[in-house]
Each structure stands twice: as structure tokens, then as C-alpha cells.
């Protein structure tokens, strides 16, 4: 690993030393597969996403309408009571402009940034929402508190996953104006 401008004492080990077998290492890649049971609450949530709808679960004790839904209220410690449909619109609670991919490789200059955002969904209780990405938006014009709406995949393409929503786009203004500018969405 090159450390760039930083210089350390001693004799540095170089990648080429390892590549040439001067230093013995053993490489192994984990081959692990999991298939998580989504359960009653998340199972229904995903099923409804496939239908193009966002569903929450309500606790009649604290009154919270919760997304993602859960079969028990973790604060009241009781079974939740009813299913409640929410809108597919919401408000940006917070967001980030990501210049790196998931593996830390940099997004090349001129290509769209990743725009993860926490969307507070209309109809759910404060603080409840969906972690997703923004799209069709000029990154410079994203604001906390901005109103957004889900952009869904076509019904036949949905598979019961949070990616059935492609991204959230601004309800008005802040829309992407020019193709030359950096923009979000994948």
C-alpha cells in the first residue's frame, strides 16, 4: 500500500514484494450464503412494495405508525395492532453527497454522485421512514425538509424489494435542469 506523501521510518513492505512471493501470504475469499426469513412484518412490507404501496404498522398504545413495520412495538413492549397505508411522498430528513462507491472506489468525475437520503414518509410518525436514494435532482439544490415522491419500477419489474422504488425525486423545483450537471440516481 502506497502512503502517498507520508513517509514512515523503517523498510516499507511494497505490494510488489507480496506479488513476487518475497513475503508469504495465503488469500482466501469467504463463500458464505444467507437467506434471511423476512418474517410477518417485513414480509408484508415487501409484498406491498411490489404492489406499489408503502405500508406501516400502528401501535395503539403509543400511537406510532411505524415504517419499517414491526409486529411488536419496541418502546411499549407489546404486539402492534393494525396495518396502515402511507403515502409514497415524504420529506428529506437528511442526505449525503457520496463521491465513492460502496467499495470505496471513487466515482469518476462527471458521473452522477450517489445521493442516499432518509425520507420521512407522509402518514408515518415523526422519525419513521425509508432509507433510500434521491434521483432526478440537482445535488446542489437538495435541501433538508425538501418534499419528495417515490419513483417506482414498472409493476411487472417489481420483485418485493426496497429497490422496487428506484429513487425519490423532488415534488417540485430543485429538479435536474441540465444534463451536464452532476445528478443522482443510478
Amino acid at each position, binding site marked *: 500500500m502506497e502512503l502517498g506523501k507520508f513517509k514512515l521510518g523503517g523498510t516499507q513492505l511494497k505490494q510488489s514484494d507480496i506479488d513476487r512471493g518475497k513475503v508469504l501470504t*495465503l488469500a*482466501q475469499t*469467504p*463463500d*458464505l*450464503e*444467507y*437467506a*434471511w*426469513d*423476512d*418474517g*410477518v*412484518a*417485513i*414480509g408484508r412490507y415487501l409484498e406491498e412494495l411490489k404492489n406499489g404501496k408503502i405500508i406501516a404498522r400502528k401501535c395503539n398504545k403509543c400511537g406510532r405508525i411505524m415504517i419499517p413495520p*414491526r*409486529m*411488536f412495538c*419496541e*418502546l411499549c*413492549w407489546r404486539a402492534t395492532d393494525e396495518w396502515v397505508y402511507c403515502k409514497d411522498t415524504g420529506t428529506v430528513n437528511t442526505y449525503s453527497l457520496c463521491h465513492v462507491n460502496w467499495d470505496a472506489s471513487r466515482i469518476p468525475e462527471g458521473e452522477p454522485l450517489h445521493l442516499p437520503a432518509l425520507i420521512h414518509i407522509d402518514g408515518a410518525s415523526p422519525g419513521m421512514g425509508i432509507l433510500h436514494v434521491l434521483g432526478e435532482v440537482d445535488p446542489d439544490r437538495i435541501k433538508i425538509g425538501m418534499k419528495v415522491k417515490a419513483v417506482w419500477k414498472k409493476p411487472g419489474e417489481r420483485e418485493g424489494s426496497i429497490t422496487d422504488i428506484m429513487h425519490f425525486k423532488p415534488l417540485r423545483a430543485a429538479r435536474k435542469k441540465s444534463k451536464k450537471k452532476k445528478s443522482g440516481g443510478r
Partner: protein
Amino acid sequence: MIGKVAITGLGYTEFSAGSPGTSFRELTYEAAAKAYNEVGIEPKDIDTFVCTSEDFCEGYSISDEYCNDQLGAVLKPVQTIPGDAIHSLAVGTMLVLTGQFDIVAVQALSKLSNMKTIPNMVNFAFDPILNRPLDEHYSYVSGLAMNRFLHDGKATREQCARVVVKNRANALQNPVAAYAADLTLDNVLDSEPVSEPVRLLDLAQVADGAIVFVICSEQTARSLTDNPIWVKGVGWSTDSPSLESRDWGNAVSTRLAGDMAYKMAGIKYPAREIDLAEVTDEVSFKELEYIEALRLFEPGRAGLALEDGRTTRGGDLPVNVSGGDLGVGHLFEAAGAQKLMEIVLQLRGTAGSRQIANAHTGLAQAWRGEPTTSAAVAILSNK
């Protein structure tokens, strides 16, 4: 032990080969709700929580972050033990003994049906430089250990098979066991060879399930329940991880964990003072190896005791009345919780058709499975 600590609440799900339709959170919630309801408490009454999980089993890095909601432990002091559930009970017990925590919840879960490449996962527990390049299925370690065990004259092959017949039959009386079966010795001895001398029916099969305990101080225990089960002693030990130089054929870490627990519990003659035991039988011969290591039978006598019926449900020292790992299912890190659970049910006198008469003191032992040498022991009593 310096003070008294009791198991007061117990909640559990059934154990099954799979639990599709139920998430790991929903499984734990069921067990926790039952445990808290038993003693009429809510999460707000619980001072701290001890969970049990191993990241590779769960498929989450830092899986401990995902344990709170379903226990009612949000924004409460919570910690996770990446060991067996008996290690977690030991930690919970120590927390009560500090005097700073009066009521503690201890949780364990197996959702291993969701782990689709168990041989690969267990292979990752081996030394990457010295052992993994051999590319063997992990059961070979059990094969090596069993061969040495048989060679040393600790038991016969037939006696090992008899463990399987006994335990899977015991599970027929356990309504939550996953692998109850009425087998013959020949069924076991003629089953498919895996890593000889280990055959397919010598090996416990994976199961899902959740177990939650409520433990507390003496004063609180007496106010919460009429039948507290006292934690008299706990012990744990781990040998060198080296497969090359461990003491094959001798379960040294279980011996030491047992001695530590006996000392704490003031037990001098385990064979006379322990009324029943639940020990690891993840591989058939382990049961015989461990009950000897735990001084419940003289060296070389465990197999004979089994043949004489002494470890069956009606014997003088029943072992794995629940069905053990072979009958209930292999629960990985939650294994010890199932063993504790059986002892609690027996000592409360609520074990139904498999109830043992006059049981006062029970022992639970768990081993963390291949290729580990970690063992933990707890001694429980209703007096």
C-alpha cells in the same frame, strides 16, 4: 457463591428445522414476551440485557447491534457474548452479583436455517494457514476425536450409537424438539459414513429457536416467583485452539469448567450430588466423553452406565432427558440455553411427561462445537 442469583423467568419457542415466515426478531420477541410474562415484568423493570450471538451465524457484522428491539432493550445497557449461552448466563450472574443490576435478561437465538453454507462458515473457524488449505469438511475433526476416544477404550462404537437411540427417543417426550425419532442401534451403525468413525446419525442436525431467561437477586427472585431456580455455580474454560497439539480424547476444558462450577456450588461428589445433566451430544460420543470429564462417572464407565440404563430417563443420573442436540436440534451458540432450559423445567417440576422424580440439582454443559475447545458449565438447584 458469594450471593444468591436465581433464574425466575423462562420463555422459549419451539425448535424446528426451519422457521420460514418468522424473522429472527419475531422469534426472540416470542421467547422474551413469554419469559417476562411468567414473572409479570416489563422491559422497563429490567436493568440490563445479555445477548448471545456469533456474527457469522447471523450473517451480520456486529450482530449485537440487532438484538435490542425484540428484547425491549432499546436505549438500555445491553451487551452481547460471542460464546455459548452458558457464558452469557455466567456474565448475567456476575452482573447481578455486582449489586448494580437487580434484574437481568439473558437471550440466545438460533436461526441457522438461514445460513446456507454452514460447512464454509465452519471452515472459516479453522486456522487459515495451517488447516484450511486441506479443504476438508469440518466433521473430520469429530472423526479424529472419536477415533482417538474409541482407541483409548473410553467406550465402544455401539455405546456411541446407543447415545443417539436414547436421545432421539427422549425427544419423543419433548413437544418442542425438532428431531424426535424411534431408532434402532442398526439404524445408527448402518447410516451413511461421514468422517469415519462418525456416521450421519451420530451428528446433530441444525435447528432454529429462541430462549430467554430472567435472572435476578435473591430478594427480587422471591418476590417474583414461588419457584426460583438458583444458579449455584458457573465455570468455563478454553483449551489451545491448535488442532495439532490439543489433548485428543480428553475433554480437558470441560473438566476444568466443571471443576470451577462445582467448587463455586460447593459440590464435592458430583456423581452423588447431581440429579440430572444436559451435556453436548452434537456428535454422539461427546455425551460419553463429557459426562466422564464432568466426573459424573468413573473413567471408562460412561458407556457401561448407558448400557445399564443409568443415564436414561428412569436411571439414577439421567443425561439429556430433553433429547439433547441430537433430539432437540443443534442450536450453535444457543445450545447451552436449551440445556439450561431443560434443567430449569425439570427442577421446577414442569417437564411434563419427561419429568424426573426428586430432581433438586442439575448440571448444564455446552461445548461450542467444531473446531473449538470452549466449554461452559452451570449448576442449578431448586433448593
